[in-house]
């Protein structure tokens, strides 16, 4: 197991009157791809900027390889950043941009030349040395920004929504590219995004944040399959979040029906939230499932049909490759493993996001 590389301890940060981070603790291990995921304003970018040295926490400390670097300015940290809008220097060509950090650290011309060529090769832009920044597409600029950061051989690479400005296809290509780069370079990536798909695709560890507080930390599978509260469940993919009562261990009452489940330790007759992913709802003929209902909405979205089904006084979101037209009477059932039980939200930030229509 690789040791811890960066540690944030009890970080507090507010801007004016707004608290951005509250008693924030995070450990990043060596050679880890960690993603800070959350809606805008959740404190993920501020966290990244504190690690980079661009913001100073009001309270708390940042440790790098066991040393307190809270007061160390960004130009003395062994950390490099890929900025949200790439921040390439417009008055320099590609080569000068990539060589900027190397020249400062006083490397020889030959070393710089080789290193620039190596980095361009790594990001699949061989021979682009003399290009102007304005001549590059968004995706190319993104790669140059990566190259400029990694030639300095940082221990940690910070990425602030680097794919945000790219179109879908390019973004998906770049996701694989980033995973490849991370494996080839063997350095730690701290990645910030509000896109749950990016987070799930690339990360070793996902940190879901809201209102400056970590809601859940875990592997992409844990975050998706076992969300700890309504906020996480709602933010990571589509989900049905339903009020329910935990009758006893492994038995939950949803919409006045008894469902077997696999969770234990919630007590007896305690109100809970239940998460069921839309793709886990099994649609069958009326009377053959656990709940009967009627399809009220049906949209084809590519991979599958997305349907709304009124059943037991709740509108269920279901996804299925078979289409059930609006008005069809159906039944719903779900296997015990796919029922995820969560405690009721204790605080505001644990609640699902309200979207005003």
């Amino acid at each position, binding site marked *: 197991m690789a040791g811890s590389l960066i540690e944030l301890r009890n970080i507090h940060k507010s801007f004016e009157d707004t608290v951005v981070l509250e008693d924030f603790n995070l450990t990043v291990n060596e050679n880890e791809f960690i993603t800070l995921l959350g809606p805008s304003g959740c404190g993920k970018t501020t966290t990244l900027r504190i690690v980079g040295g661009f913001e100073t926490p009001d309270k708390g400390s940042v440790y790098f390889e066991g040393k307190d670097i809270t007061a160390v300015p960004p*130009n003395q940290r062994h950390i490099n950043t890929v900025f949200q809008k790439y921040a390439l220097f417009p008055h320099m060509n590609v080569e000068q941009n990539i060589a900027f950090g190397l020249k400062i650290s006083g490397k020889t011309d030959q070393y710089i030349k080789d290193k620039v060529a190596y980095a361009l090769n790594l990001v699949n832009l061989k021979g682009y040395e003399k290009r102007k920044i304005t001549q590059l597409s968004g995706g190319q600029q993104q790669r140059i920004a990566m190259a400029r950061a990694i030639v300095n051989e940082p221990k940690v690479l910070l990425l602030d929504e680097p794919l945000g400005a790219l179109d879908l296809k390019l973004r998906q290509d770049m996701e694989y590219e980033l995973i490849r780069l991370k494996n080839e370079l063997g350095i730690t990536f701290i990645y910030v995004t509000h896109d749950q798909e990016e987070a799930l695709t690339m990360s070793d560890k996902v940190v879901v944040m809201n209102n400056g507080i970590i809601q859940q930390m875990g592997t992409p599978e844990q975050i998706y399959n076992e969300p700890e509260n309504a906020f996480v469940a709602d933010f990571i993919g589509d989900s049905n979040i339903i009020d329910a009562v935990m009758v006893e261990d492994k038995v939950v009452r949803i919409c006045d029906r008894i469902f077997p489940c696999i969770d234990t330790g919630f007590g007896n007759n305690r109100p809970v939230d239940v998460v069921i992913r839309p793709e886990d709802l099994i649609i069958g003929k009326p009377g053959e499932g656990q709940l009967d209902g009627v399809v009220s909405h049906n949209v084809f979205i590519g991979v599958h049909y997305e349907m709304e089904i009124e059943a037991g006084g709740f509108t269920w979101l279901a996804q299925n490759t078979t289409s059930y037209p609006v008005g069809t009477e159906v039944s719903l059932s779900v296997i015990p493993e796919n029922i995820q039980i969560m405690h009721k939200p204790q605080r505001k930030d644990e609640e699902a996001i309200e979207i005003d229509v």
Partner: protein
Amino acid sequence: MSRRYFASPFIVWIAAGTVIPLIMIAYYGFTDRSGAFTIENVVSIMGAEHAQALWLALLLALISTAICFVLAFPLALILKDSRLGTKGFMIFIFVLPMWMNFLLRTMAWQVILERGGIINGILTGLGLPALDIINTPAAIVLGMVYDFLPFMVLPIYNTVMKIDNSLIEAAYDLGATKGKVLRSIILPLSVPGIASGITMVFVPALTTFVISNMLGGGKINLIGNIIEQEFTTSSNWNLGSGLSLVMMIFIVLSMALLSRLDKNGEASLI
């Protein structure tokens, strides 16, 4: 098709305000009093008195431009990092004198600098010897800097404000020191504003005759004063026009040089 008619007032304006006066100056500049062609008016810039006035005007304009730059650039950098309200207020303060009458402002300096003026009053009050500032080239430079500083501050402030902070952060991130960030990022990216600031200070400073009249006491002749005198006291429009043409060459040359710095034409004047 009817859209074209909207442009006609401007065509009249350009003709009356630019083309015709230029032709007239060129006509007067290349003729003598009898109307015969001559290059004497233009060549007379080589004469000792004229050449000296041109040389002094160039020197004082250069010095004032340099001083304006040295004052304006750090100010722009300070303003870039200050809060939004502070920025607006500071720029307002620096531009405020522009709203007062130009002659009044220059005259005020006359009162401040003269022998029995405010500065010497304070100095003698403190038991220090009085200074002869008025009617020296230094007084003219002071007047130029005071009058033209806003023209340097505004364009530089505008370009410096436009520099994306993430570029500066990226430079720090790559290990640059403050000095390196200033030299390699902020300064090169401010060039368009600096170029237009220099033009906007250098050109009026080079041609001024009001400031040199009022603060030079009529003893120090800049090329602007010479031209003015040819048109007024000497009533020699031909010589005045000939010298003006030479000045125009200097101005066009300096602007052409500066506009090469501003490759994107962001703040360009020509």
